[in-house]
């Protein structure tokens, strides 16, 4: 099971209900190791619920989620999976360094990791600043830095580049690529289509279902559209036609 050819994440027939409403319908896909998968789709389409199921904090109705060869949420995965929620989950009454030091201690990561991740997300200058005094973009980067602590084999990042200027966004995608080259698997959600082209593979989601699964090039070719925004629109209308006919 632990061979490198086994997928990092395998989701099969996943159904999830939240607040009495079914938000994921029979979702099935695989994520190969060492790849960057972009999880694309409009707000409310189930991206966050799917990510929560992969890190094992979501109660699921049916289906299986296997992460790095083990059921999602297994105790042994707690050091191997890094997770950053969309809303920053850090202590705003602590400094950046104090936050990173605490989470590093919980993960059993070396203390040098604090310097490393602060540099990776470009927050060296704000290290001693209280988190409550940071800008929205800086706050998001502290949140991301926590997920990079230790040596996670899988990173699940919910909208990590929201609110960042283009230069910073570019730097983060360079970092994601560097991590993938080291063998780390990344699942990155976004609703900004111009980011999608940077991923190795795309999962397009709408209303709790996977509309398409493939490389950006494959998806563009299949739909005959030039950019991914159009591809997405094309796939939606195709799906609607199939449903009504």
């Amino acid at each position: 099971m632990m061979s490198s050819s086994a997928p990092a994440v395998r989701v099969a027939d996943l159904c999830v209900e939240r607040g009495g409403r079914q938000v994921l319908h029979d979702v099935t896909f695989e994520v190969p190791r060492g790849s960057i998968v972009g999880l694309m789709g409009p707000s409310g389409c189930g991206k966050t619920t799917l990510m929560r199921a992969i890190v094992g904090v979501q109660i699921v109705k049916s289906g299986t989620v296997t992460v790095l060869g083990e059921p999602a949420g297994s105790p042994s995965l707690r050091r191997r999976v890094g997770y950053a929620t969309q809303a920053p989950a850090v202590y705003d009454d602590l400094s950046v360094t104090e936050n990173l030091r605490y989470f590093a201690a919980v993960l059993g990561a070396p203390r040098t990791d604090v310097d490393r991740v602060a540099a990776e997300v470009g927050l060296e200058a704000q290290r001693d600043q209280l988190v409550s005094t940071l800008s929205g973009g800086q706050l998001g980067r502290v949140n991301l830095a926590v997920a990079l602590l230790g040596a996670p084999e899988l990173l699940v990042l919910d909208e990590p580049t929201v609110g960042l200027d283009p230069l910073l966004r570019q730097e983060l995608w360079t970092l994601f690529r560097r991590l993938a080259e080291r063998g780390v698997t990344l699942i990155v959600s976004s609703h900004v289509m111009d980011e999608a082209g940077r991923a190795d593979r795309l999962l397009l989601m709408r209303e709790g279902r996977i509309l398409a699964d493939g490389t950006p090039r494959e998806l563009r070719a299949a739909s005959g559209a030039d950019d991914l925004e159009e591809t997405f629109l094309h796939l939606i209308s195709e799906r609607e036609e199939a449903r009504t006919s």
Partner: protein
Amino acid sequence: MSLAITLATTRRILAQLRHDHRTIAMMVGVPSLLMILLRYVFDRPEVFDRVGPMLLGLFPFVIMFIVTSVGTLRERAGGTLERLMTMPMGRLDLLVGYALAFGLLALAQVGVVLAISLTWLGLDLAGPGWTLLLVAVLDALLGMALGLFASAFARTEFQAVQFMPAFVLPQALLCGLIMPRDQMASWLEAVSDVLPLTYAVDAMQRVSREPDVGGDLVRDIVIIAVCAVLALLLAAATLRRRTP
């Protein structure tokens, strides 16, 4: 359980408090001020000798209840609890981390109030001061554990704050502070028999009156400690790794 994670959590909570000078000042200052008021409201040393120690047991209980119920609600609402639950953090690591941090804080709080009471306010204790400190810290831990537990049932800060009167005031009315328990309606006395604060106040009364550490005081201390541990285990049961 992991000692390293527990201690890291204690350090983190103390660091949060270190950044919040006003909360620390109020946690130590408000009970001190209330004791001073109490001393001169009665203006009779013998009444202060009787009531003062009981309040020394009540303050840490009430204050720790409020601080932890709001504090853990913030962890739940802010997503940090969910983040910790995806990490190798045991539920008891978190709770014992909280208990150590707030236990230390209670020690500082009661230490200052006790010092003011014994010197300036002329409080006359029959028993040894360390037993009073021990009972007060256990009261604080009991308040903290009940606060952790209560926070699981609060959706908002407004609700969390209201749990204080709901959990604490009935106990404060029935614990013998306002009216000796044997003069209450018998069914209320029976209810007060199973409320932990009753034993906290009883222990404080014994420390103030009895020069030796007797069997009844030990019984009180054991009951408070067992209740605190039970409340902590109940609180642990409300921490869930998977949520809907």
